[in-house]
């Protein structure tokens, strides 16, 4: 640490006793309120002018003519599944990022950066292109789950390879992990390219639609398929929090404190692959939520995973809903891919955070 570190002004305001749990609890409540507002925004924004209030009144007193039949269909069959999907995907991406960063003890770890999303994409594209031929048996057995499950398998394969390559004697090398992630990601992208090359016209249309990174085309069926994978993965997160806190001190120290490190790693890897895979399967690649949201929260409430993980789920969901609202209103009647919004807003913000925090986050 440089000698002038102590002379620097505090980089964030921290309670004098160093206990940020009160602030974290307040953040959870505030983020719940934010999510409710974001959901209202998601349900009410769009070409039709059905407002959140009108939707609520229609629920409380159905049939009193607040909503036209057309608006009701728009809200119930288009906006609501899209909003629920946004909540699931946003929470999945942000929590995956936070868990992966804890697992690798590295603030740079994120499914999109280290190739897990590329692996999940490869899995999904394989299913779209080969679903009628080579993978027909799997496709038949899995039904609506075919796409999310194949994306999950792709993501899991990359995560396992990455961990094996980057970890030696209980220490995960930052440089090895990033380089290996880039290499594995490049291989997955190459294979994805090959599959796109051999795809026919109808498959190409499916692929293009899917790979834009968008919540458009959300249906209750899609929501159902994604929820079955994402919700258990998110449900595992609270049980990982204590162990991930210990892991911040290193694998050996975590073991000395009584944490079953191997089991923790296995559960975390499967949860990250499941959440990332399902998110990628239903929404394509949405960049930066997984790295941006946990970072912002660590600045605000500190790195304690007992608070970080629930906050990440709430803020990730809200962020994605807001980005989606922008994506579908900024170029009406067309829609921008949501990935453009998250990357365009997230990139500069992330650079700003890095510049401001270079002293404390010493990589």
């Amino acid at each position, binding site marked *: *640490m440089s000698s002038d*570190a*102590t002379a*620097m002004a505090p*980089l*964030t305001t*921290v*309670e*004098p*006793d*160093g*206990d*940020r749990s009160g602030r974290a609890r307040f953040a959870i409540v505030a983020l719940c309120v934010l999510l409710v507002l974001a959901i209202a925004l998601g349900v009410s924004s769009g070409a039709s002018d059905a407002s959140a209030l009108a939707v609520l009144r229609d629920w409380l007193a159905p049939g009193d003519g607040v909503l036209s039949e057309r608006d009701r269909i728009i809200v119930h069959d288009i906006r609501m599944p899209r909003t629920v999907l946004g909540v699931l995907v946003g929470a999945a991406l942000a929590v995956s990022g936070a868990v992966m*960063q804890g697992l690798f*003890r*590295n*603030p740079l770890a994120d499914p999109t950066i280290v190739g897990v999303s590329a692996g999940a994409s490869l899995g999904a594209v394989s299913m779209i292109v080969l679903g009628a031929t080579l993978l027909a048996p799997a496709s038949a057995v899995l039904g609506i789950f075919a796409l999310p499950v194949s994306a999950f398998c792709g993501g899991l394969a990359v995560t396992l390879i990455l961990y094996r390559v980057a970890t030696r004697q*209980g220490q995960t090398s930052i440089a090895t992990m990033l380089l290996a992630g880039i290499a594995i990601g490049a291989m997955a992208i190459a294979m994805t390219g090959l599959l796109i090359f051999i795809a026919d016209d109808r498959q190409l249309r499916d692929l293009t639609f899917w790979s834009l990174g968008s919540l458009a085309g959300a249906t209750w069926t899609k929501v159902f398929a994604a929820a079955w994978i994402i919700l258990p993965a998110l449900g595992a997160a609270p049980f990982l929090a*204590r162990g991930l*806190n*210990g892991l*911040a*001190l*290193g694998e*050996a*120290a975590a*073991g*000395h*404190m*009584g*944490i*079953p*490190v191997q089991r923790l790693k296995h559960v975390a890897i499967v949860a990250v692959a499941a959440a990332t895979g399902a998110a990628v399967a239903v929404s394509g690649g949405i960049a930066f939520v997984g790295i941006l949201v946990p970072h912002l929260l*660590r*600045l605000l409430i*500190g*790195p*304690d995973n007992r608070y970080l993980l629930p906050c990440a789920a709430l803020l990730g969901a809200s962020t994605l809903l807001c980005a989606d609202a922008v994506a579908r209103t900024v170029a009406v009647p067309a829609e921008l891919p949501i990935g453009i919004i998250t990357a365009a807003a997230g990139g500069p913000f992330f650079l700003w955070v890095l510049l401001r*925090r270079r*002293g*404390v*986050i*010493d*990589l």
Partner: protein
Amino acid sequence: MIEARGVSVSIGRKRIIEGVDLRAQPGRITAIVGPNGSGKSTLLKALSGDLAHEGKISMHGRDIRTVKPHEAASMRAVLPQSTTLSFPFTVREVVRLGLLGGWSGVPAREAGRLPERALVRVDLDGFAGRFYQELSGGEQQRVQLARVLCQVWMPVLDGRPRYLFLDEPISSLDIRHQLAIMDVALDFARRGGGVLAVLHDLNLTAMYADSVYVMQRGRLAAAGAPAEVITDSLIARVFECPLRVGVVPRGVPFILPQTAGG
């Protein structure tokens, strides 16, 4: 009691330590000393259960291979040589991690105040709100000691003594804090716990340790009370450095580096 019998450790094909016997008893400070690369830290890692070993290591009579991580964590806490953190933890948050398993031995309602009390013990009162990364190496080491103290706050739990494993706890500290931290270890031992420490400073070893194990090239060169072990001939043989050992009136040996070569 922690007991090692004929313990050997290999990393890859290289034999790091060979046939070491050691006993760390409650109420005593047991020191492991030796030149750089003699296998001190490897021995401590084997005793902590981090490295696969041949021979037998037992804790309260149980083979440590059969002890689960959470059971081991209730019997001993381990201070590593140094710890880096990738996330911006405050000092209090780091110390609090020691309470994660819930074996401090104090009632839950009092446990919340242990981080502050532990920080006072390591002379870091008022540091709770600082960021760990902004501290000096010696301060970080004392924060980690405070964390480790929280894990086994009561030296005896349910009638069984508990242990502190310390890997070079004082090598990055100034002289005042070297003495202060050794006093913390001494106090832990006097209250019924056991301390097993890898040390570099032979003078402080002589002052504080009840028994000393001297490692040389992976093997035990000598073991016994400081006055028996720290002698002219042993120092010359193990450290390959001709030093004169003096004795202060209480019978504690001391070494002045000025005597080398003369």
